[in-house]
């Protein structure tokens, strides 16, 4: 009986975490509007959203991956590689309309390699994608060297950096909303997405229920590669600069944001809404820090601390809730001797 109580409490604790992140985002925005100079104007808000979009784009497939119990740390390198290839091919004189599909295909290949290593060889994704993180970035440097390619066609640069009319909404935000809607439906309403929760919570039971675990994971890694390369293309156009080291360290922000949004690192729990709230909470924090002249290095420290807190937070909340429930039930503390009843 105390176990059932514990579980119920844990469930409500995770709900609270989701909501808490959303509430925190709203509080941060309100505070920033009233106290941070230059935060509220349309230009800054469009910067905030535009700079957060790369994190948000990759967070979509990353959320699904983490729910299924896997992770991809090579996403930033895939983005960098795809930007570098884009720059190199542009230098060769190819048209941008031909280059973009090639870069997307390259992302698919990068993701497929991760997926095959994880599903066919049964390697842990954490190790595999740390390896490809280094490898893809290395290839990017070989492809482009230390060049920076900046002379992409203006209509593309304008789209990636421009705003909708006089509003603060970047043009690229609208296609993102479409992708977000697709991801929400895919994770929470399709058989594919729903079975990811089972895979993440108990992979063996998922297999015994006829779910094609390896195939689903392979698809996820491939889509993640595709989204990472799309992000790489967006990055190069948004900042009008294709360099081999574009988006370096972005995987840290993505993982931090997703975990901050309440996606359980052990898999099986979380919502896309929470993940996106986490993304924009992180994005807003970074924006405010920039406005306050906090150095880029210090911002990385903050991101790192947030990552640790976001793993720690839900667990501490759970422990507190359990302890409280324990007192309520007037039961003795749990012990290692408790029997598997």
């Amino acid at each position, binding site marked *: 009986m105390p176990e059932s109580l514990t579980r119920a409490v844990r469930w409500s604790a995770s709900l609270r975490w989701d909501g808490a992140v959303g509430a925190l985002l709203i509080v941060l925005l309100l505070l920033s509007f009233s106290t941070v100079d230059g935060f509220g104007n349309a230009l800054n808000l469009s910067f905030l959203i535009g700079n957060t979009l790369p994190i948000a784009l990759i967070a979509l497939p990353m959320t699904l991956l983490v729910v299924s119990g896997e992770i991809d740390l090579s996403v930033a390198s895939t983005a960098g590689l795809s930007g570098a290839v884009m720059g190199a091919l542009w230098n060769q004189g190819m048209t941008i309309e031909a280059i973009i599909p090639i870069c997307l295909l390259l992302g698919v290949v990068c993701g497929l390699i991760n997926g095959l290593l994880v599903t066919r060889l049964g390697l842990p994704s954490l190790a595999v994608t740390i390896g490809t993180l280094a490898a893809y970035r290395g290839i990017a440097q070989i492809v482009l060297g230390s060049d920076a390619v900046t002379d992409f066609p203006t209509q593309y640069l304008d789209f990636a950096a421009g705003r909708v009319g006089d509003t603060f909404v970047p043009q690229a935000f609208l296609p993102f909303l479409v992708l977000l809607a697709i991801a929400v439906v895919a994770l929470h309403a399709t058989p594919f997405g729903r079975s990811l929760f089972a895979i993440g919570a108990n992979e063996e039971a998922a297999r015994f229920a006829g*779910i094609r675990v390896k195939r689903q994971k392979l698809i996820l890694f491939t889509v993640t590669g595709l989204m990472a390369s799309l992000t790489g293309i967006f990055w190069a156009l948004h900042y009008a600069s294709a360099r081999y080291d574009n988006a370096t360290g972005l995987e840290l922000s993505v993982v931090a944001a997703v975990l901050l949004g309440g996606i359980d690192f052990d898999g099986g729990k979380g919502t896309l809404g929470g993940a996106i709230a986490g993304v924009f909470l992180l994005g807003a924090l970074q924006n405010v820090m920039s406005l306050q002249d906090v150095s880029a290095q210090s911002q990385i420290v903050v991101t790192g601390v947030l990552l640790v807190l976001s793993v720690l937070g839900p667990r501490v909340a759970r422990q507190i809730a359990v302890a409280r429930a324990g007192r309520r039930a007037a039961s003795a503390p749990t012990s290692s001797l408790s*029997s598997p009843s």
Partner: protein
Amino acid sequence: MTHPSEAGPAPVLSLKDVSKSFGAVRALRDVSLELFPGEVHALAGENGAGKSTLIKTLAGVHRPDTGQVLLDGEPVLFHGPGDARDAGIAVIYQEPTLFPDLSIAENIFMGRRPRRALGRIDHKATHDATLALMQRLGVELDPDRPARGLSIADQQIVEIAKALSFDARVLIMDEPTAALTGSEVARLFGVVRTLREQGAAVLFISHRLEEIFRICRRVTTLRDGAWIASEPIEGMTEDDLVRRMVGRDLDELYPKQDVKPGEVALSVRRLTREGVFTDVSFDVRRGEIVGLAGLVGAGRTEVARAVFGIDRWDAGEVTVDGRTLTNGAPSTAMAAGLALVPEDRRAQGLVMDMSIERNIGLTGLRTTVKAGLVDRGAERSRSLDWAVKLQVKYARIADTVNTLSGGNQQKVVLAKWLATGPRVLIVDEPTRGIDVGTKAEVHRLLSQLAADGVAVLMISSDLPEILGMADRVLVMHEGRLAAEIPRSEATEETVMAAATGRAAA
């Protein structure tokens, strides 16, 4: 409430009018129990009757809200399991937790190994002390052997030896036989008798009633947290005991209906998985319940896994209603009408953190779909429908399955698979660790399914269950089918003879 107390020795450990509540749930209500030295005492009751809470109270994990724990007649207050252990009370669980990389001797003397000068560990003394314990138990186990790879039966022996090394006078054995084979149970009972003769008090819990009658002298029955009776076993029948536990007469434990078998539904031909099982061929017809018996490790579960597609086979063929199944593909097996209720419901059958609704829904994600999306209404009604049909006891369908008792969890696994409308149902240990009332329900259900034309293959280590339910018994021995025995000739002797390789195929 008076308890028949014996003349002669005083109880070594007793509970007096103990109550314990968790929130609104009253797990124990005024329960009393007396354990005498030199007696094996059974604790009987259905899942959720309060057995676990009682054990934990004796073991110092829980403190009673009211009432007393008495040691040698003196009230004691245990502040934790350590206190109970120091008082000579040890609990042997169904699945012991040893350190796999340490030797048996190191496991037993963990943290308190004999020392020599300068604090060096005395390996020889550790070894000899362990050997002495093993001899006292009459068991041959090498003290220097690592715990990794020991059978569950051997691990329990190590736990018992560990308890003895603490001078335990009271041993509480929580379903120790659930995962043991017949000969392992016999050896364990030998050890229990030895302990009894040495004056220990043993509290024995088992869902297998025949074991209670084999080894115990008295039995205390709990129902819904309340004490029902403490009485001598002698003169009782199994029906008497079941009536105490369930509170009513149980119609029948093995309600097998006679069904005329139809055409072949599942056909397995020369199936081989190298090093695991070899050349296995059999048919299961519609309306039949075929029992698959054998010792643990004979390859029964492995055959079922391969047939369903969890593991790949190296040679052979499986057909369901004439459709050939793809090697290693559970989804195509499901599409062909095959269902597998796996042996380990917590690890394989259920996602414990997921709701009852979603667990049952897992097998229907492909079918309860509207325009490519999961039809939540259809999913809920499908889950509710089957949860009600199987009489799962739950508060809300959205509760996670780990809030349910073992028997109800097993019903959820059955519901999950019956909801797929299977033509062939494979059940692996369908009633392991569930109480006798639920067991009878599961048997009635399997019998009804067969009567409705489902072909049932039932793997079980519970021989009475195989004999009581199966139309035919297939027996495996060391990876091969050793015998096929029709119901009329199936007895404990014929099945065990084939399972141990003593009979001609």
